[in-house]
């Protein structure tokens, strides 16, 4: 029954064989000998490059860097997906409406007719077309104009990134909130390879888990009118490229953190204390 037995193995650099530092719950490691970084995935340790975004302007105060997995959405695939889902749902709605009309307007069989006559309902009355409430029959679909607006905005941006928070926090809701704010803001930033051996990257989320979170962060950025269309939303999924780990600068002030690239504020409590040191 238990084929997924937990074991331990030596924590060694896949490149030089040197011992890696123990990181507790964090999944990124940097070798003290060759300074290469690696990340713990579902298949074991894999080499990784970590980037750090620089603040757009000089600001006074303490700057903390929080790691995010950044995935680039395939907008063409999304447009095709949306079109096929909308067409499929519209077709189903039409079929439901047509079937209902046929059922309501077709002549009753002899048994039904006999029963109706016995109850004093005339055949003419029974054949009278029923008033059909199309709104109750058709699937709840999002507005095409609204979808077009969202897709247009994504296309005009050139690239659309989904930001998955990778730092550790006890407040799980923070992942959704901060991921949503970063994705909505679509910050423009300049990032460079970060390999400072004295500054460990406190990443608590593996790349595969980040990829599994993409749809939820994307959903969070959609307006409520689209989110409340169950048949449309359950078919919607985002195709993305390979996740890239980037640290983003946040300016620490009492009780809050300001994203220097996103331009929004979050409460300090939303982030684990390890990440703020």
């Amino acid at each position, binding site marked *: 029954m*238990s084929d997924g*037995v937990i*074991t331990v*193995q030596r924590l060694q650099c896949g490149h030089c064989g040197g011992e890696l*530092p*123990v990181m507790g719950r*964090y999944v990124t490691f940097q070798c003290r000998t060759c300074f290469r970084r690696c990340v713990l995935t579902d298949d074991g340790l894999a080499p990784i490059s970590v980037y750090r975004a620089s603040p757009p302007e000089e600001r006074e105060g303490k700057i903390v860097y929080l790691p995010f997995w950044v995935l680039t959405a395939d907008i063409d695939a999304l447009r095709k997906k949306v079109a096929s889902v909308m067409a499929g749902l519209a077709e189903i709605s039409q079929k439901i409406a047509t079937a209902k009309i046929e059922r309501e307007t077709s002549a009753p069989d002899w048994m039904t007719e006999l029963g109706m006559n016995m109850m004093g309902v005339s055949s003419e009355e029974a054949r009278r077309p029923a008033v059909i409430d199309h709104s109750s029959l058709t699937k709840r679909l999002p507005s095409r104009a609204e979808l077009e607006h969202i897709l247009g905005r994504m296309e005009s941006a050139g690239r659309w990134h989904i930001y998955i928070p990778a730092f*550790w926090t006890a407040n799980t809701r923070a992942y959704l909130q901060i991921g949503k704010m970063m994705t909505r803001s679509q910050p423009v930033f300049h990032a460079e390879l970060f390999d400072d051996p004295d500054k460990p990257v406190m990443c608590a989320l593996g790349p595969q888990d980040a990829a599994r979170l993409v749809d939820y962060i994307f959903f969070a950025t959609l307006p409520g009118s689209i989110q409340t269309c169950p048949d449309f939303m359950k078919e919607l999924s985002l195709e993305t490229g390979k996740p890239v780990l980037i640290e983003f600068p946040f300016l620490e002030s009492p009780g809050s953190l300001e994203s220097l690239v996103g331009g929004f504020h979050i409460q300090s409590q939303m982030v684990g204390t390890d990440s703020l040191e």
Partner: protein
Amino acid sequence: MTETLDKARAEAAAQDVPHEAPASAETFGVSCSACGGSLRVHEGERSIRCEYCGAALLVTRPRGVRGYILDPSISEGKARLAALKHLSEETGGRIKARHASIIDLRMINVPFWRMSGMMAGWMSGDEVIRYQIEVPVPGPEGTKMVKRTQEEKRPFSELTFKRIEWSTPACSLRDLGLQGISLRTQMLQWNVFEHEMQDRLNIALPLKTAAQAQSDGYSYMTTLAAPAGALVKASRFELFGNRLSIYYYPVYVLRYRHAGRIYSITIDGNNGSVIRGDVPTWRKITARSFFLVPAFAAILAGIWWPLLIIAAAATYIYDVAQSGTILPPVRWARERLERWFGGRL
């Protein structure tokens, strides 16, 4: 030599990145791959340092269902005492150790499916909102305002990302009262379950499959995240962290005989509490049991005497089948009468 080793360990540990201890105090046991030392890993830890040889170790969590087992914290003797104390308390001191003959006391590792970790999910549907409105109703004494409940469906959508903790017994041993065991509130020290343990431990086989358990777990998540009274039309969930695992929890089952019947008491093997206990009920002597029932039986027997013998034989066979032991008919009759009339002959 020891000093050199300590120094090497301290130097290695100095390389580690300072980090907060995981929130969960729950641990599981593993063996160091370098020195074989017995180590305890906190839930959520991905790398640890061996406290014996100082080696840095990576905790690997392969795909598939993981199994954990808990050693009992209390001995058989303590379990027996807890059961007898329960028996004495529940019967108001009427039945004590000397009145009940203990048939056996067994430790069973009962399986539980457990889902714990972080859940990301989305759901959508209709939220039913009920509110009261006042409507005018014409009557013989004029128009009256009457309160009526109005129901309105509003579309809702919920995105959720939270820690979840859910467990369910994986076997259907209803008489043991396993539903009373909650793994969520306990900070326990689990060991990794290995297949060889099946041969030397008394392990109940899981009857509920992993797919069934997963389906039940997702239903629970939907209930947890949806607003009260909502009709969920579509949902998607992802579970991160621990995923679905099977946990073997120790319970002691004590069986005893009293007045010809067999009863059982289930003791939590971890904390010694009584999970469920059957105790003999003391029936009051009422007019019905004292006079009417024997009178009715006497009338029937007077009318057709073989009935008395058939009824007695049927009751005897039933009791023997229930208790699993053959009692001498005279002793059986005495114990039966004692039970019927609520006294000691």
